[in-house]
């Protein structure tokens, strides 16, 4: 009795140690090896063979061979399921996951036959193996879980990193290749492609890792795709054949989400680069405009000449950096003064270029001293040849003899110019012809002659004055007709400069916060009393 108690105590201690040993196993071979030592130590046997069969498999894999004389379990040997028929002691142990171990025990060292106690002991050890196997399986699952979590971290990290990297690469194949490579590897796809089409024509095709035939894979539905459109182009990312250790498997929802995220990153990067390039282009245009504005500034006079017996002032406020208005007062060789105002259709650089052409030609003709009609004909053809069909210049010029007050004028399609006589009569200077550049013919321009006497006033202006608009889209002239504005008593005795300043203040008060819609230009001449 005491022997049995000691034996049971020894076995209990042995099981505990055995469980600890088995639980440390890192693989099936280690598990089988440790189990072999436990069985041999407890049952005192000469040899043991241990087999393992995976769930639903027919094949038994030999893990431990310590007795080659034992009858082997051949592959596909169904008799392994009925092991009682085998000589010696044998046992099949089913595991929790559907797999099984088969134990074939050789003779005992003392050559005695196995008794019931041995069989019970072996059953207990089999339970020990089952428990240890569960620990082993859980460890495997834990390892797989850690691997899977690491992969998720890797995917998120790569998504962020790739976003940063492609935003630095700029446009071109660099970002497309990088995004494709990354998403192929992160989804475990075996290959991928990107097709860029424009108007249904393929304009770019990228493969990873190298060119391959897509049609059979598409036909077998072994792919996922993500498509976006940008700037008239269609970008189609496709991933093919998701890999696993067991072969090709289906892509899952996470793969699709990941692919969509990469495609979206590429889309956003392309948009950002497009906007960045547009900004650069805009900056360049603004620089060009600034240069043109500087040239324009050279054309518009900083100050006007002092004309003995007269008071003169002018203003030019362009709407953009470069305006389409022009005015000047030029002393001619015959001591007369040319008073000029012009307005080019349109604004910006094209308008400035026309103003520049007009100024250069006008200066040359005035210097040459040719008559106004001849000059107008020449200027008309020059502007016609130098401009597009929608561009023309309205132009007014008056030649003033300061001594006599004689004023010869020509109005080429410009607003009527007002000559306010001291006796309050207003003369509208309208004689001339069509705007320059409108018709490519020798137009029969005409001039008119008037006299400026003491107290008479002359206002040259562009439509930026009369058509200045307020928030209710009412024009300045609708409220302040210029002929009335000129004859207003409050403007009767003020200087030319004060008149111009007052005019600008009145326009600003009228328009309020409404942005200036057109260039504002005015030239005001008073013959002193």
């Amino acid at each position, binding site marked *: 009795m005491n022997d049995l108690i000691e034996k049971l105590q020894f076995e209990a201690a042995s099981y505990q140690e055995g469980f600890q040993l088995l639980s440390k196993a*890192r*693989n099936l071979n280690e598990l089988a090896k440790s189990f072999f030592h436990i069985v041999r130590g407890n049952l005192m046997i000469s040899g043991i063979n241990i087999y393992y069969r995976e769930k639903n498999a027919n094949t038994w894999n030999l893990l431990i061979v310590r007795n080659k004389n034992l009858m082997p379990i051949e592959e596909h040997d169904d008799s392994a399921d009925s092991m009682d028929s085998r000589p010696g002691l044998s046992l099949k142990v089913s595991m929790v996951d559907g797999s099984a171990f088969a134990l074939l025990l050789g003779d005992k060292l003392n050559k005695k036959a196995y008794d019931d106690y041995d069989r019970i002991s072996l059953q207990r050890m089999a339970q020990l193996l089952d428990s240890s196997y569960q620990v082993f399986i859980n460890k495997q699952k834990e390892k797989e879980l*850690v*691997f899977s979590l*690491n*992969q998720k*971290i*890797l995917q998120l*990290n*790569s998504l962020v*990193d790739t976003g940063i990297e492609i935003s630095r690469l700029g446009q071109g194949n660099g970002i497309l290749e990088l995004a494709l*490579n*990354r998403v*192929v*590897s*992160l989804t*475990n*796809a*075996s*290959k991928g492609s990107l097709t860029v089409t424009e108007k249904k024509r393929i304009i770019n095709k990228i493969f*990873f*890792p*190298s060119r391959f035939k897509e049609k059979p894979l598409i036909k077998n539905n072994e792919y996922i795709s993500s498509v976006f459109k940008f700037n008239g182009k269609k970008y189609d990312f496709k991933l093919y*054949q998701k*890999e*696993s*250790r067991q*072969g*090709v498997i289906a892509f899952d929802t996470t793969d699709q989400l990941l692919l969509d995220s990469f495609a979206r990153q590429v889309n956003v990067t392309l948009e950002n680069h497009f906007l960045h390039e547009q900004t650069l282009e805009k900056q360049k245009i603004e620089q060009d405009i600034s240069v043109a504005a500087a040239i324009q500034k050279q054309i518009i006079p900083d100050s006007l000449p002092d004309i003995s017996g007269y008071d003169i002032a002018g203003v030019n406020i362009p709407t953009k950096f470069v305006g389409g208005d022009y005015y000047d007062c030029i002393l001619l060789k015959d001591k007369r003064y040319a008073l000029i105002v012009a307005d080019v259709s349109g604004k910006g650089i094209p308008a400035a270029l026309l103003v520049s052409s007009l100024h250069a030609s006008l200066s040359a003709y005035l210097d040459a001293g040719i008559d106004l009609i001849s000059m107008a004909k020449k200027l008309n053809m020059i502007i016609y040849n130098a401009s597009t069909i929608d561009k023309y210049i309205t132009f007014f010029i008056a030649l003033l003899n300061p001594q006599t007050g004689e004023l010869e004028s020509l109005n080429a399609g410009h607003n009527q110019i007002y000559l306010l006589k001291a006796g309050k009569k207003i003369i509208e200077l309208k004689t001339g012809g069509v705007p320059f550049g409108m018709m490519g013919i020798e137009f029969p321009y005409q001039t008119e002659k008037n006299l400026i006497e003491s107290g008479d006033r002359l206002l040259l202006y562009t439509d930026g004055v009369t058509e200045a608009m307020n928030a209710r889209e009412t024009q300045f002239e609708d409220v302040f007709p210029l002929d009335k504005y000129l004859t207003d008593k409050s403007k009767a005795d003020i200087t030319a400069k004060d008149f111009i300043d007052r005019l600008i203040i009145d326009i600003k008060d009228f328009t309020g916060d409404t942005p200036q819609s057109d260039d504002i230009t005015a030239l005001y001449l008073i013959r002193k009393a």
Partner: protein
Amino acid sequence: MEAEFNLTSEINNDCLVLKTDGYVNNYGGEQISNEFNKHFKNGIKKVVISLAKSKVVNSIGISFMIEIIEQLNEVNGKLYFTDMDSSIEKTLTIMGLFSYAGKASTIDEAIKSLN
């Protein structure tokens, strides 16, 4: 599922040096594993994998390399990775490989560390 992947191997100072070229995926990982096992059976315990010509690796390829690390750990062996592209180094770091494997800039440096 074959991809363009090439593997060369040599023994240098008792170290197995494997040089990969191409996408380290299921196919690439299998090639590495097979070549390693061939030498492992013959007692090789020190291994260097040079990834100089591989810019992309997926997790299936990594699982093969984890197995190699586990096999080497059982016999107190060691694996070193060398010539890694920064993104591959980051990938292997996140997947936890450098807890059990070493890394070096060059093959020579890795062999020196292993000996």
